[in-house]
């Protein structure tokens, strides 16, 4: 019962004709790459600019006015209304008229000279992105001004703890790899993995289920075709398409989104290929369970959701409870995201990502093992 290259050739030729004939499929495949890359990277921008801000300036001196101006100049805030006291400011946030309110106490200029100046920033805690951006922006501006900031989040969500009681500690932070905290730098290497995972799992499952749905599988099973030949004939053309999508996303990441690539492209390619193998294997496992293309597609959607939510693509895994973390471990993307960010952003070599690479090797062996056992060359 030996492997035969002629049979593999005949099978692959057939698949290639089918793929090339189906223009819609190719458009969809490449279109999905573009759409995911653009939608995710733009939608994932979590920095919020031009927050509407109420100003309660109880000092009314040149220093307080220049501080307000500095906040506005930072582009993070727009001073949209001027109010008399803190309670009015709170009301304005309650009514969603503003997202932030700046309260400057009396004698501001004098306090600044004595290096003991204080201000209070109220933030709308019901909008977590606004709070986060506003909080860090106000902090940075204040640092330049040499002020001590008190921030308080209004509304009941309490996303941000009240800092009004905290001790005046001078923190100094230096951010590595992405000094401007550009969201795209952080997101693109992850999205490249996400695109690869989505396409590979879904299409691998669909490619095999399709023949079962058409009834052509029964016909092929009654020929001398072997299991490995059949599977490879579908996975090889699909891999080529996936690698094309990979190339497009890396290219766009570097040249369109301007995220500099710091690592070794060659190593990145080989580890992406390994990641691809694990995803295709997973798709195979799904295909052995599904009987219709719809079922295969729906099952692969689960991994897309895992990919979006639990792999650390957008939401940090360190903050997750144990169970969601464990569920996230099922998706191969969890491992590749770390590899991708490591190589792409930090420029690290295999000595830093070998752990995740090893997990992907084991992962691939497991899914291929499972699918070769469950993918029957029989109908029962």
């Amino acid at each position, binding site marked *: 019962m030996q492997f035969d290259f002629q049979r593999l050739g*005949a099978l692959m030729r057939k698949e290639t004709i089918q793929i090339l*004939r189906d223009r819609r499929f190719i458009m969809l495949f490449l279109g999905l790459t573009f759409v995911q890359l653009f939608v995710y990277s733009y939608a994932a921008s979590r920095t919020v600019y031009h927050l509407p801000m109420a100003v309660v300036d109880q000092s009314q001196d040149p220093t307080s006015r220049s501080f307000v101006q500095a906040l506005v100049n930072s582009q993070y805030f727009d001073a949209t209304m001027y109010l008399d006291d803190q309670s009015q400011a709170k009301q304005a946030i309650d009514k969603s008229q503003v997202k932030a309110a700046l309260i400057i106490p009396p004698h501001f200029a004098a306090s600044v000279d004595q290096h003991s100046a204080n201000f209070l920033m109220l933030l709308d805690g019901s909008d977590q992105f606004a709070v986060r951006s506003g909080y860090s922006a106000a902090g940075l501006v204040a640092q330049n001004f040499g002020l001590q900031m008190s921030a308080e989040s209004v509304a009941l969500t309490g996303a941000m703890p009240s800092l009004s009681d905290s001790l005046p500690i001078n923190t100094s932070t230096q951010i590595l790899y992405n000094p401007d905290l550009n969201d795209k730098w952080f997101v693109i290497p992850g999205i490249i993995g996400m695109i690869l995972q989505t396409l590979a799992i879904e299409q691998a499952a669909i490619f095999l289920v399709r023949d079962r749905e058409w*009834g*052509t599988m*029964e016909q092929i099973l*009654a*020929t001398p075709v072997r299991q490995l030949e059949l599977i490879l004939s579908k996975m090889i053309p699909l891999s080529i398409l996936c690698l094309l999508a990979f190339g497009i996303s890396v290219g766009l990441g570097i040249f369109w989104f301007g995220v500099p690539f710091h690592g070794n492209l060659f190593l990145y390619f080989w580890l992406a290929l390994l990641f691809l193998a694990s995803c295709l294997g997973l798709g195979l496992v799904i295909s052995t369970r599904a009987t219709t293309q719809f079922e295969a597609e729906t099952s692969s959607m689960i991994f897309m959701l895992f990919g979006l939510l639990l792999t650390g693509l957008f939401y940090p895994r360190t903050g997750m409870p144990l169970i969601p973390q464990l569920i996230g471990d099922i998706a191969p993307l969890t491992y590749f995201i770390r590899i991708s960010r490591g190589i792409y952003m930090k420029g690290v070599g295999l000595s830093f990502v070998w752990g995740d690479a090893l997990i992907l090797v084991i992962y691939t062996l497991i899914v291929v093992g499972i699918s070769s056992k469950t993918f029957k060359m*029989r109908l029962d």
Partner: protein
Amino acid sequence: MSAELFVTQSQVTPILVQNLTRRFGAFTAVDDVSFSVQAGEVFGWLGPNGAGKTTTIRMLLGLIKPSSGSAFVSGFNSATQTKLVHAHVGYMSQQFTLYNDLTAMQNIRFYGGVHGLSSDELRQRISEIIQMAGLVGRENTLTGSLSGGWKQRLALGCAIVHHPKVVFLDEPTAGVDPISRRQFWELIYQMAKDGVTVLVTTHYMDEAELCQRVGFISAGRLVALDSVSQLKLTQMRGQVLEINVSDPEKAVRILKAAQQSHQVPLDEVALYGAQIHAVVPDAQEYNDAIQRLLTQDNIRVNSIEWIAPTLEDVFISSVKARVDAN
């Protein structure tokens, strides 16, 4: 080394089925079926929907495992030497599944390729099969846009691209026009003349009459197995009266009522187009009784005739005999 290898090819029974049984949970799809088919024979494997026809073929092809019993094709055990079986058989599954998004020629080339044909053989077979299927000039037409008869002949061509000695055809003529059906049967006979063994399933009893031997399967059990003429002699309980009346539907209702009340010993009453077939123990004896029964109810009897049973009569009779025996 299995013992089969010492038997020369001509002595091997092309299809050999021994006590073949397949259960799906509590349901027995194929129940203790045994038969064999000789070289060059056209064997009809008949039965109603869900009787186990396709399940039998799938077991012969090793596509599903038997619960017990065994099947041999060209001397190879279907369950354990599956791929050897596949190298030696042609199979046309239900709805003749070709790739609709390949052209006619690409389909032939694909099946030839997976059967390991060399490029020279392939070139020759492509032109032969295109000829056979009547597709000259349509070689590059997408299979999906071919009509039923063409698709069906192309599917047969793809199934026999590697010159198999045994061919399984599962309802090859379902949903195809009568002219295409006739052409298709001519192809089957051509194959049989060349020494190919053909096992074919069908719903059409007129096609079944074309088989040299038939097996009837009903609810998984083999109920009759013989040549068509022998079956008509041996399997038929009673004789068939063909009745032409003015109101066939009403007549059937009357006769069925008479059957229920044992007024006339009717084995079977059924409508065949505009005619009624009534099976009675003795045609001459009950001819008058039936005629009287119908005229009583104001039905004009145009003719009533003792005819030779059709295969369908035989089939229904065999199935009934099996049901009565249980």
